[in-house]
């Protein structure tokens, strides 16, 4: 089963991953903040992940690892 892992330390909450995801797996958290003060991206619908890696391709901070 495909899954993504988001490194919250690296995430800057830009939302490019959520925008690129065709299955709406990722969403920006409304309250979860990392040490840098960014509202991080979260896999809210992980069961929908198809492992296309679009999120990782668009992530400027290389915070996402994709497994299949």
């Amino acid at each position, binding site marked *: 089963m495909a899954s993504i892992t988001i490194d919250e330390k690296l995430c800057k909450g830009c939302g490019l991953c959520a925008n690129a995801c065709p299955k709406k797996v990722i969403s920006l958290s409304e309250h979860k903040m990392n040490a840098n003060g960014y509202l991080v991206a979260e896999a809210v619908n992980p069961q929908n992940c198809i492992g296309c890696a679009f999120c990782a391709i668009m992530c400027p901070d290389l915070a996402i690892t*994709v497994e299949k």
Partner: protein
Amino acid sequence: MKVFEKTKMLTDVHMHYCPGCTHGIVHRIVAESIEELGLEEKCIGIAPVGCAVFAYNYFNCDMQEAAHGRAPAVATGIKRCLPDRTVFVYQGDGDLASIGMAESVHAAARGEKFTVIFINNSIYGMTGGQMAPTTLIGQKATTCQGGRDPAVNGYPIRMCELLSTLDAPYYIERVSTQDVRHVLAAKKAIKKALKFQSEGRGYTFIEVLVSCPTNWHMKPVDALRFMAEECTKTFPLGVFRDKSAEEGNAHA
């Protein structure tokens, strides 16, 4: 099985770029291209002055910092002394098209055998959003607050078109980072350019359109949309020079 993980050609240092800046994507595709071509041990990068000034902290290969705009001159020296190395120059638009215009054009005219990665975000990012030579007509910047007016500020410079008037460049292409499809195309172009260089073919120049959400005063996703809709009108994507195709036709 891992479908996507970080390339070993990038270090574990956290990038300092603003949220949503697609500089990080370009770093990744350059690093992945070097790794996939097996050039890790033979690669030397030249960092510019500008947003990417700390590129030497991020790339896991030999890096050299150059004075503002002088990266092609430094690359010329390195490549001529060490012709078996793969040398890439990573420059922004203020660095390459403004202060470093002379070095860039002359390196291209001489046909120096290195690769230039030109990051075009149509603004001076690091210094706080001043007008760059590539700022679009009507685009606002701190030094043209009503929008760029051609009567006062002149017109944007198109580097790919300018360099393609020269005889020496081997490969010139403009790519974008506006969505997944264009990022994949950008990687293909950069890999092709580095491959041509490793084969000793000649000067290769890849212009990458990049967003600057901070200084464009947009959300990151809106900045990508602006890049897709507006920047590509002034800076059309495509291949401007490909001597390998010309050589192919000559042989056919």
